């Protein structure tokens, strides 16, 4: 391996004996599981980066006898396709992670909310689920998992909209508080985790928190599965150690002509070449749910931005004003500037609007539209105007 390679890791896809991990946790004290995760510093891999151990402990502390575990496999972020691969390669580890969560918080029921387009995985998942339930029976554990299929709405990856969808309602985010740990699926305390996070919990319970902490930085421990796409000779799925700079990443994965990297998909940030060296990929810098999209100099950043705004305009659930109308205004606004119908100063108005959307939207979707918008407009203003 040459020196400009970012360190590859093989934890998520490592084939391990889940049964052994389950056997180990069956007799553990629930809070010891939470503590192990807290010791590991594992943060959610869906993008928001909430400490997993804390989330589980909050759910465990709730008095309600009925609690749920939900695996968020809606993976709708443009440019993200790692959960599909995880579910395809190591579904048993995902279920195992849910069982660990169930043990930690005291839940008897888990749901996998599977992205509608991943329907083809269902036969495989069902076979694996049968095996899993048999193992549970062997250990006298009554934790059960069901699979629920999404219907294609991006917003249903937002945890509370996801609950609404499972409950058979229109997928719209709820007001927070209350948070899922106290009022989640069917109004019950719920621990909801990303597919990859759950697999990490399996590996932490298998190898221990210290093993996990050996990788990464102080703020971003461990490794992460990246979905790498765009102008790269090495598109695909890679598990990499956290803490690299965008520069290091581009040296490894770029095509020699990279002008920008979109970190974290449509809801993430665009990092221009001049900021590659100073930007760390991780919770201390640019967090990401896994999507890394590289753009070379042949790409129009106006088209990139237009594509994202088009996406958000369609995928906003539509319930809150800043997001529903704001997305439309940003889209129509950049079009008008491009056509010369509005002067370039109008972009400043739109940047202010994006700030309002970030501050006043009801959920993470509306709050993050401004990320791509602000970072692309700020760094590629000429491309947007001319």
């Amino acid at each position, binding site marked *: 391996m040459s020196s400009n390679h970012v360190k590859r890791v093989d934890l998520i896809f490592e084939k391990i004996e889940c049964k052994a991990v389950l056997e180990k946790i069956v007799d553990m004290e629930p809070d010891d599981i939470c503590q192990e995760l807290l010791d590991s510093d594992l943060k959610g891999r869906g993008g928001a980066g909430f400490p997993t151990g804390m989330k589980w402990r909050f759910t465990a502390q709730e008095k309600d006898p009925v609690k749920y575990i939900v695996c968020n496999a809606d993976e709708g972020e443009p440019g993200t396709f790692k959960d599909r691969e995880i579910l395809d390669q190591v579904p048993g580890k995902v279920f195992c992670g849910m069982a660990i969560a169930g043990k930690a918080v005291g839940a008897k029921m888990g749901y996998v909310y599977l992205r509608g387009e991943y329907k083809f995985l269902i036969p495989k998942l069902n076979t694996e689920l049968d095996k899993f339930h048999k193992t549970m029976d062997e250990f006298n554990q009554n934790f059960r998992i069901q699979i629920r299929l999404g219907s294609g709405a991006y917003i249903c990856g937002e945890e509370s909209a996801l609950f609404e969808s499972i409950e058979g309602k229109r997928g719209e985010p709820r007001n927070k508080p209350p948070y899922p740990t106290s009022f989640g699926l069917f109004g019950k305390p719920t621990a909801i985790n990303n597919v990859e996070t759950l697999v990490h919990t399996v590996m932490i319970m298998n190898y221990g928190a210290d093993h996990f902490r050996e990788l990464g930085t102080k703020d971003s421990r461990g490794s992460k599965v990246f979905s790498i796409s765009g102008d790269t000779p090495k598109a695909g799925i890679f598990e990499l150690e956290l803490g690299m700079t965008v520069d290091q990443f581009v040296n490894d994965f770029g095509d020699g002509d990279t002008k920008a990297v979109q970190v974290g998909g449509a809801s993430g940030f665009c990092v221009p070449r001049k900021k590659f060296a100073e930007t760390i990929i991780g919770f201390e810098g640019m967090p990401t749910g896994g999507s890394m999209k590289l753009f070379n100099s042949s790409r129009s950043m106006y088209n990139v931005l237009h594509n994202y705004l088009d996406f958000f305009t*369609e995928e906003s659930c*539509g*319930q809150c*004003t800043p997001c529903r*109308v704001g997305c439309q*205004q940003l889209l129509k606004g950049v079009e008008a500037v491009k056509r010369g119908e509005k002067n370039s100063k109008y972009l400043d108005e739109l940047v202010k609007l994006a700030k309002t959307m*970030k501050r006043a939207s*009801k959920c993470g979707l509306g709050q993050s539209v401004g990320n791509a918008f602000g970072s692309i407009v700020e760094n590629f203003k000429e491309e947007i105007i001319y």
Partner: protein
Amino acid sequence: MVSLSINGMQVKVPEGTTILEAAKQLNFRIPTLCHHDDLCVAGNCRVCVVEQLGAKALVASCATPVTEGIQILTNSLKVRSARKHIIELLLSEHNADCTKCYKNGMCELQDLSNEFAVGDHIFIDLNTIKDYTVDRFSPSIQKDDSKCIRCQRCVRTCEQLQGVNALTVAFKGDQQRITTFEDLSMAEVICTNCGQCINRCPTGALVERTYLDEVWDAILDPTKHVVVQTAPAVRVGLGEELGLKPGKRVTGQMVSALKRLGFDSVLDTDFTADLTIMEEGTELLTRLKKALVDKDSDVALPMTTSCSPGWVKFIEHTFPEYLPNVSTCKSPQQMFGALTKTYYSRNRNLDPKDIVSVSIMPCTAKKYEANRPEMRSSGFKDVDYVLTTRELARMIKQAGVDFNRLKEDKYDSIMGVSSGAGVIFGATGGVMEAALRTAYEIVTGRPVPFEDLNITPVRGMDGVRQASVLFEDCKEEWSFLNGVELQCAVAHGLVNARKLMDGVKSGEINVHFIEVMACPGGCLGGGGQPIPTNEEIRKKRTEAIYAEDMSMEIRKSHENPEIIGIYKDFLGEPLGHKSHELLHTQYTKRVRY
């Protein structure tokens, strides 16, 4: 108790209080749009966002409960800039051609836009890009999506207060809108025309179908004799629309104003409310006799009232298997209409074809009811035009009548005399109470055994209420009722009607007689009543209704001299041949969507 600071001032409030409510206690009003006292929290318009020091994002004050020690700013730079943006965004999506709007001057979005001096219209007009058509097919409700701000108050009203779910949110993103099953018109779906959505729509997206021009044309046509009837609840609501406080009774001024508007005869729906009691009470006693004496197992009990057209359409859609249980009596409005063009015209020596019959109702479903094909038993359309309380107020304003200085006037006769029992039709439980006052006396020869005839167990604001009256020492012809405890149930708001009917269906609720009013609080909270509405306002109107009852000389329907007169001169007897022809109707099973 939780203590927090708002704009630097300390306040202590009970746990669970929202920031919005806490601010109110300190006399800080935070603007809202999607929030409504009658409905669950939505938190979707975001107009009410405030700054919580230390928090990254602004919080929706209507949806966020207070926590210990938080510091809130309701008017910071961040808040002001976000709020102005949000109002601008709503306006950019809204058909802001205000001068052409029916709700011009009565629009919450317009108020906010004034308040925040939003005149720049910085954003691109999105409204003209979209292809909206106005749904004018319903005779009651007009829906104009171009004015909709997606606050979903109507959807929540239809679901939570009415349990009808005719309105729903469909599509997402820029395509999101409020619509019906398969985008059908309001006239083709399960909508009961109750108009509760109109009462809660902040803009002009949902309004009543207005017939003001038609009524003015009739009044100003010298060849027409225009008769107007006024429903019980109008007299306790109209004042609000004309600047008076909720709960003010304006019966006399209203009569006076109607005369000034040029109606040829100003009459009272309360008269036919009394008539309804005679017909419906007799119908109930007849059904009881069939069940108890003739042991007729086909007789449909419990019998339900039929005066609320929202309820009638609801049961036609939702519980069609119970249609035989609905009293065959027409509503007081329709009885009045049928008699206007028969009994009244004969009495006044008028040709019914020259009569235009107008009713003033607290209700939008009455507009639909008047247009039912079966409502033509006089040989003409029994009621030609139905106006809401709000439309009447608009007529009064248009005619330049200084309402608040008017002297009280009296209803014309015939069909203008009524009892207190007729008045209380306007409140939930009122029909039940009026029916019991008469039925008990018919059966026993004595007044109902309640102080001042006030049957308090059927009154109140609980969604479903049950009560019973024991028949003792009955008159000879009613001796089969000796010892029978008449079981009654009352529901208001269709979500409660559904609960009640589900209970009847499951056998949990076992009663003889059911009163249902489609609207919360009964007609006084009707879909044609002044806006705004909330529980406090409805309670004030309720107090006014019962005060009106107490002020009446006659308190029982069967003692109304005009009722005695109409049976003597025209109808013969309750449920007689003429009654059947003019005062009774039948029902239709309808679609489930």
